């Protein structure tokens, strides 16, 4: 479904992504791990058109999406969330979710009804007429997810959905991602929590200092020497 071919991106002298190369099959959940600054979010920015790679290519459903604007890429079927959450603060929760729907439906009422489905899905329906700036971090994460789902993506890129929320919210978010897959959405998930990845991901890409140090099944990645040194070692120390 998605093919990332030898992507390179540098910011000044810093190689944020170096020859990143992997594929995502339809219906799977791909995990992306790596310590802070490894280049995970940069990879999302490259795939979704927020940054232009220096070289390499991104294919979605067999066609290159390189050089397209973020809105064009979204309309092709790639949705994303942002690590640094970006709700529309002066809009209600319901309106936040309706934005992504307007490319698919013409009537506001239709959009409103469908928006409620996503808000139920993430458990925010009782907050629908609240301005987004009034939500807690956990609620914002869920709003971000509902909003991205509302653009009806075939492929959803989630940047640290469980990061920065309290521990009891994590399982809820994990089960949301699981349900996404059952409903047919392909997911790429940036995730620091190894336990979460083990339970969710079909494959994992490990990045370190802009380099792709491993790709494989979660168990293989967990046992991978370099990954343990660069990442797990640090967090398990």
């Amino acid at each position, binding site marked *: 479904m998605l093919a990332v071919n030898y992507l390179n991106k540098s910011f000044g002298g810093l190689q944020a992504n170096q020859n990143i190369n992997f594929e995502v099959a339809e219906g799977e959940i791909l995990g992306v791990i790596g310590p802070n600054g490894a280049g995970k979010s940069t990879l999302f920015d490259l795939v979704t058109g927020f940054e232009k790679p220096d070289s390499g290519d991104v294919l979605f459903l067999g066609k290159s999406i390189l050089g397209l604007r973020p809105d064009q890429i979204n309309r092709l079927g790639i949705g994303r969330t942002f690590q640094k959450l970006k*709700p529309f603060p002066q809009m209600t929760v319901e309106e936040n979710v309706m934005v992504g729907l307007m490319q698919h439906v013409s009537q506001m009422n239709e959009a409103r009804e469908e928006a409620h489905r996503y808000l139920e899905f993430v458990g925010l329906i009782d907050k629908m007429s609240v301005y987004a700036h009034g939500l807690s971090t956990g609620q914002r994460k869920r709003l971000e997810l509902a909003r991205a789902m509302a653009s009806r993506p075939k492929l959803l890129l989630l940047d640290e959905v469980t990061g920065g929320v309290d521990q009891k919210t994590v399982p809820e978010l994990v089960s949301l991602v699981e349900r996404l897959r059952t409903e047919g959405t392909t997911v790429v998930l940036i995730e620091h929590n190894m336990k979460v990845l083990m339970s969710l991901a079909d494959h994992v890409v490990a990045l370190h200092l802009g380099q792709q140090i491993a790709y494989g099944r979660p168990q293989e990645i967990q046992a991978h020497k370099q990954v343990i040194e660069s990442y797990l070692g640090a967090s398990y120390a």
Partner: protein
Amino acid sequence: MVTEGSDTRIVTPRRLGGRIPLILLSVAALVFPWVFEDAHTQHVLIMIFIYGLMALGWNIIAGYCGQISLGQAIFFGIGAYSTSFLFANFGITPWIGMLFGVAVSLVVAVGIGLPTLRLRGHYFAIATLVIGEITQTIFINWEYVGGATGIWIPIVWDDPWYTFQFHDSKIPTYYIGLAFLTGGLAFTYWMERSKLGLYFRAIRDEPDAASSLGVNLGRYKLLAFMIAATFASLAGSQFAQYILVIDPDTVFPLLLSILIVLMTMLGGLGQIWGPVVGAAVLLPISEATRIYFGGQGGAEDLMIYGFLIVIISVFYPRGLFGLIERLIKRRDNAGS
């Protein structure tokens, strides 16, 4: 007890008014010129309608879509010059002139907006400011359209609806102004409830998120700017037909662009009634200070306006409407 999100229930315009106050307001506006026959009062109302329409347009590009234009006078001037020039030179009815003005304004808006609106940061604000100043200078030196003296619209007594000149009474001008303002309000009302309004506000709040959800930022910003240009152009045409003498200093000044900003911010940025409330509060004051200063308003006005904009944006970012909302909330909280 204050729980998370409890202070964020939205106060909708419905709670501020509803249908009955709107009907009362409409009736009041309709009978007003028959009750207050004094020419100066009617004059102030006409000015509120004209500037209010222009401010409604600025509210759409800046209040809803978040793109600060500091050059709305460009389109006001184009509207004014289009009707005046076509009528003075070719006898073309100002109604056609008005449409011509809108067409020219749209072309100019695209010319300014296309290269600048796709840039992040303050390029658009600075570009509109600078192009506004350049436009005024061009018209001052453009002898074909009257140079610095501008255009004196030939006075004609016959056929007032064709010539758009009403010399016996201000009442037709009043109603025309009211009709256009109502049209502007109706458009804003519709827009608020449409995809357009949703996209504009999304762009204003968080452009990255908007584009990640399929919103073509460039296209919708440009659309907002074109709407704002149309409103300003229509206001300019009406102004010219009302005053009948125009020159670059009265229809293209930076002061006018800034006044519109101040009006909208005073009333409430991104609020449907904001611009009209702001115009209704500010214009009588502005008229009075003009008389007080004895001039046309110049550097002093600009300084005062600028100062007020800073004060409002620091202390009352949501304008008079924000204040009213807060009062209602306080009353509700006290009652519950």
